[in-house]
């Protein structure tokens, strides 16, 4: 069974210019014990999606329709107390900037013990668990380091601590919002490896948000490509990366420096800009920037199957099948 099953979720923001439709009919499934990556450029709705799952939305955000089913229960209809009971125990989150995710005036130990407030354990037991978690994420000498303040740790260490805190209660789902973006390349590899091991050990699912294609390819089982608030392609990492079906995915892969074979001075880009989410174009959301646009693109494409378990929202799919 899927741990997280998002169906036709639409979220919009009230802005002075009008309703900004940040997410439109987004459907994403995170299967049990799998790592699903979400990739897309800035403004594609990744952060809105996370905030809707964990229900920490901006005050001006509004869920239009859809459901977010976690272990079969719709999170969107739950009360504030119910959702808070799930946060940190069933669903946890790791944030982008490790320099900002800890309370600067409390020691790491105090924060790690405090977050276990729901468990009926003695302080010593909670401390023991914090030590174990720190050891698990690879912090050397965890016993002593519990007494240190966040600023006494490096960025990579702080991100490990954030991961340790998020996994403390062994949640079923970990949401990682670009957890390696603020780190340098070697640390990125370490954190990715560690996440893989931890996922294996704890047996949780991970929803991993990134705009780094290499990291997604390395870490994830499945990948969802988002563009301007819609899912344009979804499938196994192998299918999506080896035979991308949507022109946007192809363009994205072509822009990835890791994929470029020849030496070049200028990295390729996708011409044009993302559409205005207040005044949406009718038809395909990517049509204006698509190199393969044709007549059918004036209508909004539905999700179609490119191969088994690999879907894309593009009119070309039916065409190529028949051609």
């Amino acid at each position, binding site marked *: 069974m899927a741990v997280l099953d998002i169906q036709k979720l639409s979220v919009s923001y009230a802005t002075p210019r009008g309703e900004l439709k940040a997410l439109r009919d987004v459907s994403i499934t995170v299967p049990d014990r799998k790592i699903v990556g979400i990739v897309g450029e800035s403004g594609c709705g990744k952060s809105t999606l996370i905030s809707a799952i964990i229900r920490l939305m901006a005050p001006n955000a509004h869920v239009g329709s859809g459901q977010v089913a976690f272990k079969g229960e719709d999170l969107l209809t739950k009360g504030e107390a119910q959702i808070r*009971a799930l946060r940190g125990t069933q669903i*946890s989150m790791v944030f982008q900037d490790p320099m900002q995710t800890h309370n600067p005036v409390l020691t790491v130990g105090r924060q790690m013990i405090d977050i276990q407030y729901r468990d009926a354990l003695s302080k010593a037991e909670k401390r023991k668990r914090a030590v174990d978690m720190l050891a698990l994420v690879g912090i050397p000498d965890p016993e002593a380091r519990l007494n240190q303040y966040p600023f006494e740790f490096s960025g990579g260490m702080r991100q490990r601590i954030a991961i340790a*805190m998020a996994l403390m209660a062994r949640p079923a789902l970990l949401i990682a919002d670009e957890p390696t973006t603020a780190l340098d390349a070697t640390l990125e590899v370490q954190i990715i490896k560690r996440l893989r091991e931890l996922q294996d050990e704890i047996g949780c699912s991970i929803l991993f948000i990134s705009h780094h294609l290499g990291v997604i390819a390395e870490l994830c089982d499945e990948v969802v490509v988002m563009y301007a608030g819609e899912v344009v392609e979804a499938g196994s990492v192998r299918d999506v990366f080896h035979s991308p079906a949507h022109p946007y995915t192809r363009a994205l892969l072509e822009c990835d420096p890791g994929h470029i074979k020849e030496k070049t001075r200028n990295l390729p880009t996708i011409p044009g800009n993302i559409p205005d989410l207040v005044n949406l174009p009718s038809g395909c959301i990517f049509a204006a920037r698509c190199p393969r646009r044709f007549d059918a693109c004036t209508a909004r494409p539905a999700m179609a199957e490119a191969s088994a378990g690999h879907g894309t929202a593009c009119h070309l799919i039916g065409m190529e099948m028949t051609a």
Partner: protein
Amino acid sequence: MTDLTVPKPRSELGEIVYHLVRDPLGLTGLVIVLLILASALFAPWIAPYDPIALNVPDRLQGPGAAHLLGTDQLGRDTFSRVIWGGRVALQVALPTIGGAILIGLLLGMIAGYGPKWIDNLIVLLFDTVRSFPTVMFALAVVALVGPSLNTVIVVIMVTSVPTYGRVVRTLTQSLKEAEFITAEKSLGASTPRIMTVHILPNVLGPLAVLAAMDIPTVVGLEAGLSFLGMGVKPPTPSWGSLLNDGYNLIRNTPWLIIAGGIPLILTTIGFTFLGEALRDVVDPKLRGKGGK
């Protein structure tokens, strides 16, 4: 440095005191403040004479062996009055600041974290209180209920609340948007938990600094109100009434006004130094980097 073992952890307060006394500024401030506190606390034992005992034959004597700081127009020993006056000053300053901090903390955190309409309401309240000059406000209250130490305490407390409340509100507002608060929420922290465990300790540091620096202001205000005859009633010694007495006799006996002014200056210096040093010490990140 060959010793690489992590030092034994001190408590948060121990850590602050340890770094405070290593900073020359902090040490000076701390010593002055402790001296003032001690002299106020042990006034009955330190003061050589009864501060209100009249000794008219010995009036207006200059500083000397019998009277360290001389005597006033009624022959009362000025040194004893300074010591006892410190007691009055702190009797006003400590409850005033304590009360103002408590109320300011509560209102400021509610305003900063709560919904917009509560914020507007509390800010309106702060602005209203702030719009009265303290002395005018005190004059009005004294005219209504008569001068007393308690009146002074209440008036200064009420007019100090906005100072603390605004600082707390601003800090809370910026902390509310901080990513670590969102991170804590995502791990299941409730609003009361966020307020007490995460926002409060971040607010207390700056507030302690503000309070330390505010004590001289309050002491000065008390002296000012007593000087104007709105504070403590004679013959109770206070630094303000000492100044008042000295002011009337400044041509012939300048030591009276000097004796009343020096403790005020010392208090200001002591608490300001302490406040300055505290600022570096309460932030764990700056700890040990400010002083040499």
